[in-house]
């Protein structure tokens, strides 16, 4: 049977079915379809070819190690994405200091911290989410979340989101902070801010 005619998901099923000596061929075919996609993500994430190659190798190592756990609940590409995404972000968390969160905290409104809210983190998260949703444009929200939530550098965000404006993610962070500062003033004027 030709492996090239099988879908990704059928290849994983074939991987489980064939005896161990033949599994290499199946994995070769499966991974070869995704080398470029993973390489592209890793290059955008790291901005460096050697680092991207190391990251991509780790991704495929992990994918192979956990291939048996793929149950077809999603497309293989999406399953691979979860590995790529988590491996990239975990590596970044281990390696890099993030942006100075204190600066932006001064500009971002927070809800009146009543006793219930202090005890309920989800409530605050929902409040922040609603504020971001009402105040920011979609790309501003994404850039803001990646920069302050995941502490990714702006250059990496520019590449990951495929932003092709001249100053990339920086322009969106600047406009997001400006809009959030205005929102804070409005809320303060309405008595909803300390």
């Amino acid at each position, binding site marked *: 049977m030709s492996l090239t005619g099988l879908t990704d998901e059928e290849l994983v099923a074939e991987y489980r079915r064939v005896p161990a000596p033949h599994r290499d061929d199946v994995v070769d075919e499966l991974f070869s379809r995704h080398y470029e996609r993973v390489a592209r993500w890793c290059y*955008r994430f790291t901005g460096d*070819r050697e680092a991207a190659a190391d990251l991509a190798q780790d991704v495929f190592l992990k994918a*192979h190690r956990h291939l048996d756990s793929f149950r077809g609940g*999603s497309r293989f590409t999406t399953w691979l994405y979860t590995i790529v*995404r988590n491996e990239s972000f975990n590596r970044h968390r281990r390696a890099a200091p993030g942006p100075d*969160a204190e600066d932006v905290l001064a500009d971002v409104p927070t809800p009146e911290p009543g006793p219930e809210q202090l005890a309920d983190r989800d409530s605050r998260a929902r409040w922040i989410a609603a504020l971001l949703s009402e105040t920011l444009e979609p790309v501003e929200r994404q850039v*803001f979340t990646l920069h302050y*939530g995941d502490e990714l550098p702006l250059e990496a965000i520019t590449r990951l989101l495929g932003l092709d404006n001249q100053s990339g993610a920086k322009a969106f962070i600047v406009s997001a902070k400006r809009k959030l500062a205005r929102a804070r003033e409005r809320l303060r004027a309405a008595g909803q801010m300390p």
Partner: protein
Amino acid sequence: MKDDLQRTAGCIPLERFDGEFTPAEHAHLAVCARCQTEQALWHEFTESVPSADEGAAVQWIAAEVRRRRTDAPASGKSVWDRWRLPIWSFRWAAAAAAIVLAAAIGYLAWDREPDISRNREDAIYRTTRVETLKPQGDLEEAPRELTWVAVPGAARYEARVLEVDRTLVWSAASTTPQATLPAAVIARSVPGRSLLWEVDALDRSGTVIARSGTQRFRVRVKARTGRE
């Protein structure tokens, strides 16, 4: 703030992004910056194509990952073992190199009469450098080939031309100490534009035994005459 931007129990699992969302998931997505961001990233991963300025780098990375996987000898090992092999090989090679180096230093430090029978040219055999010949520096016209000095023990060479930001332009393997440049690369070598090139020497097992430094060349910009 950072904690408020993380995934919560109500967030949509990443594996759900390629399926049909439920009404509850739609409602959540509409107000959750985290899920909107994750969806945008997932979309970039699954749908986007390399831009013009990253295409060569992406090709290089994909080829490098493929090479790391396929260069390891199969020999009945699982794919997992094959992936790991270069790392183990490297460690064993490094340990072996350290032992050889220590032995060599001891041998050289041993007080003895100089051996005048050895050919002076043997020294080059121990080098880890590929001596490049041309092109180098400013040229009158675009080069047609890359040439270098043969390295003893080399089974093949891998040459590559790069932009000055080290983006790969072209690469090729050769069993002789020269590589003919294709027309597309020659066409890139326009007057005033610098390009880089490098070459690695590999033995029969595919191990790099010598590398050149990075060479730079460009076609000289010709001065205009007053009559032009």
